[in-house]
């Protein structure tokens, strides 16, 4: 008697489970790393070694997804953000990404940082058909959906930014004698190439000097002295923040006032312009796609207020002058949007499909008017920039929003 009751109960339970699961199968689809309750995301970033300054980005993203989880997750699923240290070393990057994929079994790899590390893992991830989504580097090669359909960039490419400067100069200062100071690595060389492409046939006559420096040099004073001797009237500063600040300070100390254009990477108010001295930085030009966390003009901006509230709650004590907090927030918000668009179809193919269908998406931290757009043939999410001029203690935007897509070769 007892046993028949039990059997009936069990079979009823089984039918119930079967019913719900068939219903679920109709719409829910998962790849490794996703389930009814969880989405597992992998990330690598340098937390140690000479590039550890970028670790802030990974920490911000981790905190962002903690906030998302506290708000109920994405479509009811919690995000499990697994982030590892690659020390900015390509062999370590390969090891850590393989660990993420084969041991942690993540759904996708998000925002891995640095051109060398990303180049090292690109082939592996594409052959395994795992999204390498929104990589944290501005090389043009990430926008290549034909050859690498599983890799997508995020920020504007270095080359497109450099082209904008070249085109602006040709229009506003057609007779300019241009000198370029660049860091001797993939980052600096991309800017160099973009500038030359932008000048086109006029490159040879306009660019009178290309001076490179190594990141291991403590001070770049002698390069500035050398450039000044060639007497250019425009100085393009394609450097990382420390050297950008040194350049602006040194040119002022030399009593030299060329028109200076500094890369967006080093346009931070708090960590470049202020250390270089606000007096020295007056009139410097740059281009931007995101708001600056230390710039007072965004104090009452609704998007930046949300960013600020997030920092207060999840990262107390954060140094707002560090651009990494703005960057990480914007990138994480873009991923959250894509995952939300995926709905219950959390397959890797659908993640790439949704990532390639972003239409006029605007994370809280982007400049007004700058929108994220992607398509099956356009894997460069942010492609718009606006020129800006440093005045007083902040950047003043001017001119139109310029789109600078550079197709990958």
């Amino acid at each position: 008697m007892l046993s028949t009751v039990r059997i009936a109960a069990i079979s009823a339970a089984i039918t119930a489970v079967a019913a719900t699961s068939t219903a679920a199968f109709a719409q829910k689809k998962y790849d490794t790393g996703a389930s009814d309750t969880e989405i597992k995301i992998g990330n690598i970033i340098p937390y140690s070694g000479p590039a550890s300054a970028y670790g802030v980005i990974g920490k911000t993203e981790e905190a962002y997804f903690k906030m998302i989880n506290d708000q109920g997750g994405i479509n009811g699923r919690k995000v499990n953000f697994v982030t590892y240290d690659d020390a900015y070393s390509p062999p370590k990057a390969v090891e850590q990404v393989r660990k993420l994929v084969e041991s942690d079994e993540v759904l996708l790899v998000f925002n891995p940082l640095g051109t060398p590390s990303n180049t090292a893992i690109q082939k592996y991830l594409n052959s395994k058909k795992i999204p390498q989504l929104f990589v944290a580097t501005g090389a043009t090669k990430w926008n290549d959906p034909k050859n690498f359909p599983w890799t997508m960039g995020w920020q504007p490419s270095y080359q497109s930014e450099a082209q904008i400067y070249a085109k602006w100069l040709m229009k506003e200062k057609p007779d300019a004698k241009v000198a370029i100071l660049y860091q001797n690595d993939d980052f600096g060389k991309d800017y160099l190439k973009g500038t030359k492409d932008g000048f086109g046939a006029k490159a040879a006559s306009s660019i009178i000097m290309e001076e490179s420096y190594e990141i291991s040099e403590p001070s770049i004073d002698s390069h500035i002295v050398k450039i000044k001797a060639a007497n250019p009237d425009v100085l393009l500063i394609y450097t990382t923040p420390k050297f950008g600040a040194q350049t602006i300070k040194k040119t002022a100390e030399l009593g030299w006032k060329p028109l200076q254009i500094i890369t967006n990477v080093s346009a931070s108010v708090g960590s470049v312009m202020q250390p270089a001295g606000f007096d020295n930085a007056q009139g410097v030009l740059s281009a931007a796609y995101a708001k600056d966390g230390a710039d007072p003009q965004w104090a009452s901006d609704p998007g930046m207020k949300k960013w600020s509230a997030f920092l207060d709650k999840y990262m107390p004590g954060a140094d707002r002058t560090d651009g990494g907090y703005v960057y990480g927030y914007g990138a994480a918000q873009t991923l959250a949007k894509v995952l939300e668009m995926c709905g219950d179809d959390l397959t890797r193919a659908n993640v790439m499909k949704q990532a390639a269908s972003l239409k006029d998406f605007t994370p809280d931290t982007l400049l007004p008017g700058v929108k994220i757009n992607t398509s099956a043939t356009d894997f460069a999410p942010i492609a718009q920039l606006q020129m800006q001029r440093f005045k007083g203690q902040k950047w003043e935007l001017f001119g139109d929003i310029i789109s600078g897509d550079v197709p990958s070769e």
Partner: protein
Amino acid sequence: MSAAEEIVTEAAAVEAVPKRAMTLGYGTSLVVLAALILIPLFVKNFIIFQMTMLLIYALAVMALNILTGGSGQFSLGQSAFYAVGAYTSAILMEHAGMNYALTLPIAGIVCFGFGFLFGQPALRLSGVYLALATFALATAMPQLLKLGYFEHWTGGVQGLVVTKPDAPFGLPLSQDMWLYYFTLAVSIAIYVASVNLLRSRSGRAFMAIRDNEIAASAMGVDVALYKTLAFGVSAGITGVAGGLGAIAVQFVAPDGYTIQLAISLFLGMVVGGVGWLPGSIVGSAFIIFVPNIAEGISKGLSGAVFGVLLFLVIFLVPHGARQVAIVAQQLAAKLKKN
């Protein structure tokens, strides 16, 4: 400032390790070998990849060990030889379409020549001066690799992507598994050759120079030849390791071969025990896994945790894994007596 003050008896930089003590016993060797052969059959591909890197770094650490533990010369520039080996293999594979296995001996020979030549000026330097010279080599190498003149071959700052080889003869092995066993075979061959080298006439000459250079030369050892030879052999083995590393990682770029790598290899040697060749694999495990452990303990302070762990190791066993092995041996002997 008397004359006496200026005469200093130079202590040997490295303490004497008798040549028998530089290797492992027969039984232990077999156990380690069996473990290295069997473990990959039961683990994930990613762990096989880690084990491949373990062997590759162990080779590089052993090469440094032959130089420092064997001939008493110190080098902080091993990353330079590793880079030359890696680029030699990568360029031959990608530009000349050569088989990966054939590129390794070439990488070894190129690096042997490079190391032998570098050993010439190094002859006149010792102690901190040699450390600085090799350190200079390590810092210069990434800059040389991205030099515009070689860009056609090296890929400049962007580096070169390398194709991973499949298992030959249609063997039913994954790429990772095949590469692991291939690396294991190469490593064992080099290890056996190195042990034999140190037991040979040349090995005795190395050690004589290490223990007392002037006495060695008085006994008729051609000090200059053997010191440069030690540099050449060390560089050659490091080059083969670099070539294997390029194949395993599938990518070479200047950023992969900075001074950090040279420092890691040096730490690997100290942790494994200077002059004790089997310790190289322990040292290699340290430099691969301890940063991962440190990161697991704290992301923000991973560097500090790594430093603390390193201090713990050198406090507990200042002579590295060799010390552990010796203690274990004595314990075993005691147990036998009882």
